[in-house]
């Protein structure tokens, strides 16, 4: 009863083709944006914002990237971590050489570099598919990881061997670096994520998104309809890596503030983002947010939540239990609902159409 579409008739095609054709959905999105932009900054503690919200947004962005190539186009990529790294290092070098340019521009521009590298490593996808392609993306992952460590120019020859994030300002307010407050960083990331989600939604709802899904579902038929496979797959890789690159740049500059990059962009990270996409829902933008939320909350709960309510857990043990839970969740979801949380959400909305009168 709450979620009714009756009475909402579409008189034009453009009305029918809106991303959120139902009024209830539009209201929902408005509420979410309001909560994100106003409520959380007002009520959330700095700790909450820096440990929960900012990473959540970063992961959601990375998940979007992976979802584009794996969920929408059906090309398995295990190189997500590495592509994120490319973005981070690209941003670092760009802002080192041109410190006057606003950092947000460099964060977005760094995506172009990871897009190029992503497309390069996506070239094999014309001849290989499925798990073979996954192994090819591992080549990207390990090679790029090696580059991050062995090419000192990338980290400006720092003694630490890692990116040391410089302080950058927007309108006089420090946005990156040690003096930037969580609030400022939160707003910048929120802006970036909202913008990029809007763009992704536009592209995926149009001709390009349909081409991606056609290639995923039946590439032979797609080819025989005139969709050129290689350019489409390369575009998928490029677009996906763009998003991963920007996610990596935001991770370094707006979340970590510099640190052991070898941890942040390794194969483990690739797996975690893949899990977020699987659990959230392959082929669903909103699923990226669900997946990122769930898979980020668990370790946070284990590390901070349980001790807060009196159950002490050693750091290492929390890691182990995290592994167990995540692995178990994956298997559970694949068995019960392979389309992930996004499908569960759809089903909930379906039920809301008739609640409280199920018959």
């Amino acid at each position: 009863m709450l979620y009714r579409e009756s009475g909402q008739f579409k008189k034009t095609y453009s009305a029918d083709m809106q991303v959120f054709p139902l009024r209830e959905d539009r209201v929902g999105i408005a509420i979410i944006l309001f909560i994100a932009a106003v409520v959380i900054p007002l009520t959330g503690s700095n700790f909450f914002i820096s440990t929960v919200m900012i990473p959540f947004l970063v992961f959601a962005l990375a998940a979007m990237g992976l979802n584009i190539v794996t969920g929408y186009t059906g090309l398995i990529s295990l190189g997500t971590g590495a592509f994120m790294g490319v973005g981070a290092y690209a941003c670092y070098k760009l802002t080192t050489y041109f410190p006057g340019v606003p950092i947000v521009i460099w964060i977005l521009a760094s995506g172009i570099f990871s897009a190029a590298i992503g497309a390069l490593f996506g070239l094999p996808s014309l001849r290989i598919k499925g798990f073979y392609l996954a192994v090819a993306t591992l080549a990207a992952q390990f090679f790029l990881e090696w580059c991050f460590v062995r090419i000192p120019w990338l980290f400006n020859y720092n003694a630490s061997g890692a990116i040391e994030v410089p302080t950058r300002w927007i309108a006089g307010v420090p946005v990156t670096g040690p003096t930037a407050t969580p609030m400022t960083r939160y707003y910048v990331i929120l802006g970036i994520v909202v913008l990029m989600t809007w763009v992704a939604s536009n592209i995926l709802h149009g001709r390009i998104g349909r081409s991606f899904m056609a290639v995923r579902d039946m590439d032979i038929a797609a080819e025989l309809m005139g969709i050129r496979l290689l350019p489409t797959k390369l575009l998928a890789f490029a677009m996906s890596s763009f998003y991963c690159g920007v996610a990596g740049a935001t991770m370094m500059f707006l979340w970590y503030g510099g640190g052991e990059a070898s941890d942040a962009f390794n194969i483990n990270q690739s797996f975690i983002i893949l899990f977020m996409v699987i659990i959230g829902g392959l082929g669903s933008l909103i699923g990226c947010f669900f997946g990122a939320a769930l898979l980020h909350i668990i370790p946070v709960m284990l590390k901070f939540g349980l001790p807060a309510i009196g159950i002490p857990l050693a750091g290492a043990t929390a890691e182990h239990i995290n592994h167990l839970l995540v692995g178990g969740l994956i298997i559970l979801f694949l068995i019960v609902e392979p389309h992930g949380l996004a499908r569960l959400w759809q089903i909930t909305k379906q039920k809301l159409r008739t609640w409280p009168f199920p018959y």
Partner: protein
Amino acid sequence: MVQNSTISPGDTLLKVDHVSLRFGGVKAITDVSFDIRKGEIRAIIGPNGAGKTSMLNVINGFYHPQDGTITYKGATRAKMKPYVAASQGIARTFQNVALFKGMSTLDNIMVGRTLKMKSSFFWQIFRHGPAMTEEIAHRRMVEEIIDFLEIEHIRKVPVGKLPYGLQKRVELGRALAMEPELLLLDEPMAGMNLEEKEDMCRFILDVKEQYGTTIALIEHDMGVVMDLSDRVVVLEYGRKIADGTPDEVKANQAVIDAYLGVAH
């Protein structure tokens, strides 16, 4: 809807010349030649394993023959490329419905319009603007097809959920969306009951009459073949054993022995 080409009805639209296709040691097609005239319905029949689907795949460019040439719209090629076939107006349906199971009916048919959609990546980023205008124009065209095939009620349904007969109809719609000059149908009526078959026959005839599309049709139901087609090619074990009007072929002894059998 009829494409402007220098080929008029009755002329040869497609010619297959001495085509042979092998997979390792298996000879799928051996030295087969026939032609398809513009505006006709050409049936390709024969027992299972005769090479009928392989023949369509060769015309499409999915398989590349070892020998022989394909002449389409006057241009002769040793092998067809899928993209060339599609952009030159060859569309097809498949024996085992090859729909995009993750998308709705509407989206599936919209994919058929992809070749005709020209808005650039840049405008796609914003969606509103030139990209939207183009999308609406194509949507209009797709709705005509949906109307024509009477599938309005399942527009938004994910095709995986549709019954088999409706899936085949959606597949036909997707092929039609390409505004093809040559439509290749691979057993479009397989697995349908009488009513569905009649509907499909009606649609095929309407496609020929309304849009002037040339149709090549693989079909096992002899009644359908006799009623619908203008000319028939009969294949057996990869070779052509008869070629002519339905009546000629029906009376051909070789065809009767291989395929039709006699009335008891």
